[in-house]
């Protein structure tokens, strides 16, 4: 499969703050990639490197095999971008925004843009500054997708959109782009959205990639088990493959990796038994990986 984005060992610091620490990330054609992480995890910094807005000071970034800083035309002409801040020139009218963006993209599909404008019920004679936050996001989204980019980058696309717009429009656009054999990378902290839309998921925490892979593989690699011990534990029991443990006394809930059989043996060795096991949800994996499970927070 064609490699669209290839990031190798990328690190970036702002003063004493490490935003990215040895991040590697690859994206291939026709897939939807969800970037998940808490605020400040490094998602936007990573996307800005893909767009060439930040220079790679350590490591390398290639988009369509090109360095987006050295060859912005080659890379950006094939990319559509929706920023978190929806930063658009306030004085422009919607139709002017469309014409202006069109001038930079020979592949601009005017009928598609018109179709989206109609479906969003956007008044093209309105100035950007007169639009609501949601309408502004819709205008920015049209400007990002109407040239049918090979790579669509969405930074927190749901921010400011109501639930209906999010599900009916954003999901549809993202799926259409992916079904056309094009690639979508989007960042979000709405885990249900990532689970619904992504083929691949990358979890980031403190500038590092903690989990990355196909969504099914990621989910299949983590289980949440309810365990019951014969003896009372004041502190969480020590289990090798456990990432997060919640509960108290004899009953504990554990998010863990590795094989279920291995986990069963570990629990048995402590005199307990596994009552129930299921694949962990993305939220449970994220919280366990980000160290935000209740038990870990309490322990901290």
């Amino acid at each position, binding site marked *: 499969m064609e490699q669209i984005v290839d990031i190798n060992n990328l690190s970036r610091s702002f003063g004493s703050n490490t935003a990215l620490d040895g991040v590697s990330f690859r994206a291939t054609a026709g897939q939807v990639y969800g970037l998940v992480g808490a605020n400040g995890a490094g998602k936007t910094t990573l996307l800005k490197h893909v*767009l060439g*807005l*930040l220079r790679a000071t350590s490591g390398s970034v290639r988009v369509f095999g090109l360095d987006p800083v050295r*060859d912005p035309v080659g890379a950006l002409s094939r990319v559509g971008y929706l920023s978190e801040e929806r930063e658009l*020139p*306030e*004085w422009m009218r919607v139709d*002017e925004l469309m014409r202006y963006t069109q001038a*930079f993209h020979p592949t601009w599909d005017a009928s598609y843009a018109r179709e989206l404008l109609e479906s969003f019920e956007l008044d093209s004679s309105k100035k950007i500054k007169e639009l609501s936050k949601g309408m502004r996001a819709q205008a920015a989204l049209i400007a990002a997708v109407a040239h049918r980019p090979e790579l669509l980058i969405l930074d927190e696309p749901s921010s400011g959109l109501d639930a209906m717009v999010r599900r009916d429009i954003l999901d549809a656009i993202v799926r259409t782009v992916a079904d056309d054999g094009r690639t979508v990378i989007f960042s979000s902290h709405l885990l249900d959205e990532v689970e619904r839309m992504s083929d691949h998921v990358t979890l980031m925490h403190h500038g590092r990639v903690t989990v990355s892979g196909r969504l099914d593989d990621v989910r299949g690699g983590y289980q949440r088990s309810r365990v019951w011990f014969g003896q009372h534990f004041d502190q969480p029991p020590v289990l090798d493959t456990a990432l997060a443990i919640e509960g108290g006394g004899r009953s504990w809930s554990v998010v863990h990796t590795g094989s279920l059989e291995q986990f069963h043996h570990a629990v048995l060795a402590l005199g307990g038994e596994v009552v129930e096991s299921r694949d962990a949800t993305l939220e449970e994996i994220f919280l366990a990986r980000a160290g935000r499970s209740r038990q870990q927070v309490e322990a901290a």
Partner: protein
Amino acid sequence: MMRSPGFSPVSALLWENWRLTRREGAQRFAQGIIVAGAVLAWSAAFGAIGTNTARWAFFLVGMTYVPLWVSVAKLNGGRFMDGYRPGYPFYFLYTRPVPTFVLVGAPIAYLVASAVAGYVASALVLRAAFGYPFPLLSVAACIAAFHIAQWAAQWGTSNKVVQWLGSMPAGLGIMALAFWRFREWPARFDFLIGDYALLTLIGVASFGLTVAGVARQRRGDARAFNPRTTTRDGFSDWLAGLVRFPCPTTSATRAQVWFDLRSSGLLVLAIGAALAMLLPLLFAVSGPIAAVRPYAIGVSAFAWPAALLFLPGNAFGIRRRQGHAFASTFEATLPRKTAPLAGVKVLVRTACVVAALIVVGLSAWASLSLVSGWMSAAQKMAIGPAFWELPSSQRGALVGPEAHGVLLLQHTIQQTFGALAGSQLVALAIVIAIGVAVLVALRAAHAALRARYPRRLNIATWMLLVHGLVLVLLALAVRRGIASALALDTILRGTKWTVAAGTVFATVYLFWSLLRERLLPPRQAGVALLASAAFGAAWFTLLGAGGLHIASMPAIDAAWMLSPALLPLTACVLAPWSLSRIRHT
């Protein structure tokens, strides 16, 4: 990290104001002393400080504390005439359990106290350094009253018209009073008891109006300050909406030209047109009203330099939000190479600035002819070919000093341009046009570098200022025989050659850096070289017209005289390099 003191609401309000304005306060304090000190030191270097020089210095340090420069716009969330929102800016304080007069009184007290303290400290420093009796109490009272009156207009209402109209009478009244009493300074600058009473009355009335206006906004009886959510707004946006023409979709370059014209070029043209209209109006009014004549002369003399100074700024459209400067992500993510993007931005702004300068220049020239309205029939008759052979004092006595000033300016311009041959006029046009482009590019690069490397640029700026101040003080010391002229000459020569060598080194480095990063396409590099060559040739022609013969000069002096020819090349490489640094941080 700075922590808010938790003593009382008033302390918290004062702390908030200090955090917002401390940098600007320090900047104004340094600026007042350095600018006024430089004027006085420069004058002292060439003899005793004259009364007019001292007045200028006093004027400059006083004007530093005029509230227009203060954070009126910043406190209200934008820049002056650009996203400026009138109304009480600390709207988020409405929910705090504090009476309205405290909400208004604490910030006003802080702003007034900081301005007064800044002026008094500056005046004391200048008094000690130069021995001139800069007045303290009277000017402090004027500054305080002026500030309170301005805040009444700025904060008491969110209606822009009322604000603009309201800020004028009190402000102009206080300035008129100060200027009237100022006439006899340094011999005398006393305020009468009545003057202080008037200033107190203005202050108390303004404070009352502000409290009443803010209380209305707080209760919801008047439209409250609208918190700024967008990055740009205001006059330039209004203008962009007023003049509409469709964006071309046939090429990215044309679309970029359209964008830069609409977003900033129109504003430059509008300011040029407004200035051009103001000049003949002032001259026409000054015929029947003699009091307006000094203003007509002043505005026509400063209109062109002011337009040249202010209109070329920030061609890259660097934005500021909450103290953070950045390039537009929208523009940065468009598939456009950085060098052509920088080139289009600089050229569009240059075209607009040159057009504005032409309009202002033509208007000023046409307005000068209206000076005949200032003279009687007999005075007009006196102006003939023999008039210019008379001594200056006699000419002034014949037609009046103001008319003589204008006629002299007109005559000098005529003589200067009349003496130039056709090729020299072409050379002058080339030097002005490319010079404006260089200025636009350097200002744009400065704004970009200031946003990208603020600390380094601030250090460099302060070092330059200190260096300049040292030179001025050394010149003063040489004049008084304290220091050796050789030392000053050596430092001056050293400075000159450091600047020249630095410019050459920076140009070569940037050129190499741009080529290495493949930022500068060969075609644009060729255009840069051609522009530099054209500027060099034109510069050489003008030097010849000015009586400077490069061939007969020592090689070092000749190289120095020709060094400005390198500036277009420097600007051509610095502009894309700096835009690249802020586009790809």
